[in-house]
């Protein structure tokens, strides 16, 4: 019989036991402080769980419903509104990459300013598109967070626009001044198609704390969730565009029958003994039925 040894699992329990008792001792000492920390942790866990639930219960169904959307404007609007609702953001913008290598504003919404432009709303977005490359030098334009996000094909976030040095937020600041608004946190997510080509950018403004409704930075987990939603949205957009090309072909509706090929196939079948027999029997049968009926 082999000598029983302490398995690695048992080693682990030893370590676990030591840790647990240490924690117990520390717990006794730290008392009150630990309790608030535990509460915070619990709340954190609770939030993570809600996020996971949200993902399973919202993001996946949204992705599915996006695929079923057959009107482009409604599809774009759905993408933006669902992303905004999931992230509890106050505002959002959806850009599409144009063949001229610019980012075109297709839709802008903002709850507290009660703005909705583009999408299915009657108001058109009148803002000029953002150049992805400098018109003179051809250099990539990394000045704006949205263009940088599109160029780098990576999601990017800024916690506070007014303390951020990396990007040029003069556009957002001018907007704030004009609208008496305060842009704080920004998240940009690229919409990549199956070939990893960026076809658009989803931008969300001013995330809100679910408990206090105060504007906060976009949490890393939220960023992940938006990246996933971005994937689903891009897939839906891609399939819409594919169907659209398909439809355009059919709307043109040239029903073309290759008559020669058809004749060949028909002749091949009708000349078989089986078909001839069937033809005769069918005729007899119908004649008989006719005879019965008359």
């Amino acid at each position: 019989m082999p000598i029983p040894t302490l398995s690695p699992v048992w080693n682990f329990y030893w370590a676990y036991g030591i840790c647990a008792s240490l924690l117990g001792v520390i717990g006794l000492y730290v008392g009150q402080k630990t309790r608030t920390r535990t509460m915070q942790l619990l709340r954190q866990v609770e939030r993570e769980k809600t996020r996971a639930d949200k993902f399973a219960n919202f993001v996946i169904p949204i992705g599915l419903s996006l695929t079923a959307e057959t009107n482009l404007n409604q599809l774009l609007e759905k993408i933006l509104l669902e992303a905004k609702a999931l992230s509890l953001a106050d505002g959002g913008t959806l850009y599409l990459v144009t063949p001229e290598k610019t980012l075109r504003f297709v839709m802008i919404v903002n709850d507290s300013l009660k703005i909705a432009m583009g999408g299915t709303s009657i108001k058109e977005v009148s803002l000029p598109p953002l150049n992805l490359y400098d018109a003179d030098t051809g250099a990539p334009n990394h000045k704006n967070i949205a263009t940088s996000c599109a160029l780098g094909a990576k999601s990017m976030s800024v916690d506070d626009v007014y303390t951020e040095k990396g990007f040029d937020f003069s556009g957002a600041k001018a907007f704030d001044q004009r609208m008496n608004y305060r842009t704080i946190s920004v998240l940009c997510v690229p919409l990549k198609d199956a070939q990893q080509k960026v076809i658009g950018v989803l931008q969300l403004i001013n995330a809100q704390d679910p408990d206090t409704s105060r504007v906060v930075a976009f949490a890393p987990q939220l960023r992940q969730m938006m990246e996933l939603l971005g994937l689903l949205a891009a897939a839906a957009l891609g399939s819409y565009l594919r169907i659209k090309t398909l439809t355009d072909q059919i709307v043109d509706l040239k029903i073309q029958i290759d008559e020669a090929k058809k004749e060949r196939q028909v002749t091949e079948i009708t000349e078989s003994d089986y078909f001839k027999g069937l033809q005769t029997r069918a005729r007899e049968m119908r004649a008989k039925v006719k005879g019965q009926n008359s």
Partner: protein
Amino acid sequence: MAKIVSIHSYRGGTGKSNLTANLASLAALAGKRVAVVDTDVQSPGIHMPFGLGEDRVEFALNHFIWGECPIEKAAYDVSAALGRPGGPIYLVPSSIKISDIGRILKEGYDVRLLNDGFQALIEKLNLDFLFIDTHPGVNEETLLSIAISDTLVLILRPDQQDFQGTAVTVELAKKLDVPQMLLVINKALPSMNFDELRAKVEKIYNVPVAAVLPLTTELVQLASSGLISLVHPELEASREIGKVSEKILAP
């Protein structure tokens, strides 16, 4: 005299089984005595919308073909799927057992047996309507189903391959003197112009288009597990199926 209605398409996945199940149900709800035969022995499908489980099926069409039972033994009353009173509706399923499918594919069978079976079924169950759900494409058994039909419903999707294949089938059906032929365009994209589509298709084949069904989310969600005409009668797809049904039920 019972009316035999075959539902056929040149290619697979066009929506034959779904349409057959709905048309048969509408006929039963109109008080007719109805049976449905699944002649798609290679890939049976119509037991699904009628909720006929494998456990209930002792004999299938296969066993009749093998001479193991009379056809009426393989007919199951599925009227409960209608969820309301109507004429009785029977289903003769094809076996979904892999071994049975394998055997019938390997051995083949004399398709004339099918005709004998249909006639016996009409007589034994005193049917008003016999609906035949077919295998896609042109082969001996689909040609037989077409030849003996009073009404042939041909389904096609609005795409080039279906247009071409349907042209062949229409030609063959005309040579077999099928008294009533109806075209149904299925899975039309909502962005298409349905009227234009209908007009062009009628002109090309010189056969009436009884309905144009849009691609319908609810049908995808139903995933063959229910009868759209009964579950969602308000949908355009259901209303269009109703038009086909009217044409079939008209004396």
